[in-house]
């Protein structure tokens, strides 16, 4: 059980990254959805012991994380949003290195583990290749492999699918879906689909605040019969924006499709639309 209470963080340059964040996260895949710059990574890094909050606490199974960083690190698997690799070091070597640092000190066990991990993430054939030459997808798979070392109880994956091609993304999500049992996996992403596919619990974060919280399906149910759409011309969008509670406007065959949130039928040519998680996302961040 990961409890985040009243977490706030302001960077020295004045950016307020987190503002009174409260979240209780239990086992399973937790999706943290939010636009770029919403504070997702700040939150992830704070949980991953890489930075401290100005105020508030993070408790993991009753343990105050900021005071017991080392203890948390023992149960943590972390795939950062952005990470580099040493050139001229192979995946196998690097996994060995990290496994060692994660306390897998028995040589044979470590060998077994690294081999299994490489096989599981489909990198076994590339194990001797320098990490510098990995493609984006391979690099992310390597990233999840290293995060999985040491049977972590808490896994944080920060925007793992950004920049992956659809096939890689699919494969990566398949992989993620396998690991979410019995442990907490926090997946931060700005891709609504990811959360849809993987998470049973989620939060939407925007401007450093948690703006929506719940089970994705329940959240979608909450918008049942409330999303209406209409195709308009580009120059009309401003008008609709002013008149209605607009969720989003997106291109559709040269015209704009306007989504609005309304409890009643707005008429005026709007038709009801089946709500999706995307609607939740946009209605919360707009």
């Amino acid at each position, binding site marked *: 059980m990961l409890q985040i209470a009243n977490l706030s963080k302001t960077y020295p340059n004045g950016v307020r990254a987190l503002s009174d964040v409260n979240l209780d996260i239990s086992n399973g895949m937790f999706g943290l959805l939010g636009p770029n710059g919403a504070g997702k990574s700040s939150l992830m*890094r704070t949980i991953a012991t890489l930075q401290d909050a100005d105020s508030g606490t993070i408790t993991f199974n009753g343990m105050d994380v900021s005071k017991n960083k080392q203890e948390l*690190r023992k149960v943590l698997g972390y795939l950062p949003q952005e990470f580099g690799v040493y050139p001229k070091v192979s995946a196998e070597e690097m996994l060995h290195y990290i496994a060692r640092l994660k306390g897998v000190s028995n040589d044979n066990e470590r060998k077994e583990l690294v081999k299994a991990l490489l096989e599981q993430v489909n990198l076994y054939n590339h194990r001797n290749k320098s990490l510098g030459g990995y493609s984006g997808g391979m690099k992310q798979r390597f990233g999840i492999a290293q995060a999985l070392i040491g049977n972590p109880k808490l896994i944080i994956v920060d925007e793992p699918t950004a920049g992956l091609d659809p096939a890689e993304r699919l494969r990566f999500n398949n992989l993620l879906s396998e690991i979410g049992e019995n442990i907490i996996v926090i997946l931060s992403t700005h891709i609504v689909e990811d959360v849809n596919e993987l998470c049973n619990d989620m939060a939407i974060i925007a401007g450093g605040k948690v703006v929506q919280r719940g089970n994705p399906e329940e959240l979608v149910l909450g918008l049942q019969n409330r999303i209406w759409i209409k195709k308009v011309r580009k120059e009309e969008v401003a008008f609709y924006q002013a008149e209605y509670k607009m969720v989003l406007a997106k291109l559709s065959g040269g015209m704009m499709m306007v989504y609005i949130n309304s409890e009643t039928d707005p008429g005026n040519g709007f038709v009801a639309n089946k709500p999706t998680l995307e609607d939740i996302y946009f209605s919360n961040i707009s």
Partner: protein
Amino acid sequence: MFGSIFAFEVRRSLRTLSTYVYFVILFAVTFLVALLAGGAFPEVNFQIAGEKIFANAPLIIDAFFGAVNNYIGTIIIVALVGNAVLNDFRNNTYTMIFTTPVSKFDYLLGRFSASMFISLIILSAPAFGMMLGYSSPWVNPDKIGAFTLMPYVSTYLLTTIPNALIDGTIFFAVSLIARDIFVIWLSLIIFYVATGVSSSIFGSLDNQTIAAIVDPMGNLAKRTISKYWSTYDKNHLQYTLSALFLVNRLVWLGISAIVWFIGYSFFSFSSSPRRMSFRKPKIGESVKLTFVPSFFKKSELPVVSRSFTDTSNLKSLWGLSINECLNMWRNVYFRIIMLFGMLLLFLSSTQLGKLYDTTVLPVTYIVVEQFGGTIQLIIVILTIMFGGELVWRARDFKMNNILDSLPVPNWVFYCSKLAGLVFMQILLLGVIFSSGVIVQLFKGYTHLEIFLYFKYLYGYRLIDLMMLAVLSIFVQALVKNKYLGYFIVGIFYFWNGTFAGLVLKQNLFIFSSDPGVNYSDMNSFGHFSYAFFVYKLYWGAFCLVLAVLSSLLWARGSEMSISQRLDEAMNKVNKRSWAVMIVGVVVFLGCGSFIYYNTNVLNKFETEWKQEEAAKAFELKYKKFEFSPQPKITDVKLNVDIFPYTRGLRSNGVFVLKNKTNFNIDSIHVALPSTLLIHQLNFSISSQMVVNDSQYAYRIYKLSSALKPGDTISLNFDVEMVTKGFREGFTGLGTPLDNGTFVNNLSFLPNIGYDKSYELTDNTHRKKHGLGYRKTANPINDTPALQYNTFVHDADFITFDATVSTVPDQIAVAPGYLQKEWMENGRRYFHYKMDTRILNFYSFLSARYIIKKEKWNDVNIEIYYQQGHEYNLERMFRSAKRSLDYYTTHFSPYQYKQVRILEFPRYATFAQSFPNTIPFSEGIGFIANVDDSSKDQVDYPFYVTAHEIAHQWFAHQVIGADVEGSNMLSESLAQYGAIMVMEKEYSEEMMRKFLRVEMDKYLTARSNESEKEKPWAYVDQGQGYILYEKGGIQIHALNKYLGEDSLNHAMQRFIEKYRFQGPPYPITLDLVDEIRKSTPDSLQYFITDAFTKITIYDNKIKEAKLSKNIDDYVTEVTVNSKKTYSDSTGKDSDAPSDNYVEVGLYKSRTALMQVAMYKLKPGENHLTIISKEKPYKVVIDPRLLLIDRKLDDNEVKLEYKDKTQDKPKA
């Protein structure tokens, strides 16, 4: 386009904090240095050049600027210029820039010139630092000349800018070609070292011109300009862009431009550098694009045990360390550096311990020390550089996000980095070891001392390097910019090695310092190890504290200010680290107190300033007794017990004192070294001690009845020298040693009367302490001073009898002949007695000697040496025989029946002549490697032996009075003997080599004279360059001008007249008188020039033409002759008279064919020289008889064109 790139980059740099930090630090450092040099802290005696040279003399400004540029400036240039383009790759901004229409030229030139521009602004900081320092109110006005802006500007323009450009273009070009910061570092190291090596290889006199051009920083070129500058010149002249300096600048700027364009042409707007390898890249199997679903099964991952106990942490530390070491080992650049280092060492092995261009044998300690010195800079740079790279590696490669969140305690990270760094040092020391062994074997030296290598390299050297590693990681762990880290460590290292000692005085405050360790074959590591390891424990504990701090404050996570890290460090999980730190602090303080107890309580520690204050107080208190009549010692009978292992010495004995004055003496002054224990001191007449000044161990005894003229009294004493703990500084000779004790009577026996050698002699220092001007010597016409000889005031010639004891396996030696040797109470006794009277100056030696004996007529020649040092015994014997031969034939009979040469440890490198006893340093001669096949290597074991044996005549037969000039009678005349013996034994060529080196030494040294240069006949005791170098050249010249026999007859008459005479003692003018008697009128001017003037020639051959006249060759020469007299400050004035000068023809490059003396008028002279054989070159003053400021224009190679061949063939 160029303009906007330039402006953008400059603006960007100006917004960067580090730009200002560099500037401010450079400014502050030079400001401080200027204050130090300017004498703002009178207690800090910082001298860069002679005392009379202003701290802001153009030369000094240039030197500071140059040093800053060389050592610290390069780091800035690497940081700014080396990274100017690399940053675009690191930040991935290249993708945007390379796709804009900017031209490659604009882009590169923009980046280069902007970074160069900023570097040059930063590198101007020293000028401002110095200007402010020198014009601050704290400096000593005596040290500061009038302010002029010109030297700063010209140094900046002629030195700083070109040198920075050279560095900059090299680093820039390398960065373009390799796109790797390591390669830049590599190029920096190669650049540094190549510069150093080229200057040492081209360092010999013959190669000065090449060296001046080859040295990229222009220092050697500048040296050729200022080498012989007088003090006056140094204060007033500045380097002008002329001659070699101009050539140097042009050559190197040209090379820079070429390097720049090579870099430029290599560079292309592509993401990867141009491939430098010839291997074709293998085409890998193409990646299958078909969709492979993930079949990830978490349950299939093996369950592994994890542990986070200390044991497993240690285990992972081991693994990580191995990993770091492997990384280091696999680093291609590091391997290149190691290979390069080896190459360098092989090159430098040709220069092993050179003295007069003669190397020494590759004995292990010499190899280790010299190789260690050569490669030191590489190890230091690599330690600083890899220290940064290791700490910043994770962050540089953005691996820190992953690594920082792993459950590893900081100390594991920290220790693994340290291990990697130390491993690198071990490898580099291994380079010394392996190259050393290879060089030894290659040179046919098979006495391999592998264990000594290990002790030296891994026992002593590694400790210091490890401390630097700890420091380097510590700084890098704290700073937020790697280059700032390099800069800080670099400056600190520089400071620590130079100014720290001057300012902080005690090793207790100087990071990683120790009193010094000096290995000697005789005394091994001696007593130094103990103090060394105590100091290393002390600094090791300090480093432990730094290490714990580094690990506690290890940067982890994405934003970690120092205060946040401190908070983190306070976390109670770190309590063990704090405990370790407390242990460190406790050991540090404990050792510190122990060291303080040893150096300041058990032994006296005085800064130079305090010592000078004490000397001042002594002078003020007791100077009044200088001329109070005192008796002189006439007979000495001694027992001296040497205790090598406890490093003690006890001596009791009797001095018979005689009143040689015309006055009644009612009180006797006795002075002793103040560290001595005085068990007994009394006179045969009852007396009362009326003054007992324990600070100086100065005592005055009032006799119950006055000593009448001609009366004698005896002084009984029992004194002891005790070694307690260890001292602050290096203690070598002068105290008993485990093996190789060499002490003389002045260090432990009573001195009668006021001893003016305690006085503060340096007049600049006297002024600082408010003391009046002190003459550097008594004037030559000071009649009362003729009563005393130059050695000691309290005796003339004495009888000598000494019983010396030591441990059973050592032999103890004192002057005199061995009467008896016996064992008693487990100690070995030797009784020595001299049958003639000797000077009151004698030595005691004790060591495990091997003795080799030979005979010359009825004189026994004995060499007492360290086993294994047999190499040059034959040369020494031969020299001794030739010397005895020459001196007895040409000077006077030898007064003893024996000559003994005794080896002593290399803590000092000299030989010294005592009656029939010549202590001779292990460091000179015994391990010299004279190559007899080479004609221009000076056989200095032979030469030094001859010089010392000549002292048995000049000093021990004839000794001068205590007035100016007298030292010439011993040193220059001993030099004469040595030169004559050498000239008979060795080739013309070797003599020329020798004299050339002496000439250069003289001319260089006189330009550093701190008081005033005196003519030969008035020379001061401290003016070695006149006594030895100029003296040797001139007396050799007299020999040639007057003829060997004439000069030797004069010497004979002089010796005959003053042999064992005194008081009154002779003065130099007595010798001059005798020489004048043997000199024809035409050459009297030459005697005057040599003895009473400072005469310097500038002869040269303007042109020479060779033609053939039936059978003979005719050489027509135009020579230019110029003679100047120099005043004591080095100002010259022309001497208009005619002079005799030799002009000679060579038949080959080195073989002199014929030489004749010509009378030359000042200015141009035309000579015609006829020779039977075809001459190769014509040389003015070929035998180097005259002091000539510029020797390379003294010869012209002759080209003979056969006229018949010029005619067109019909």
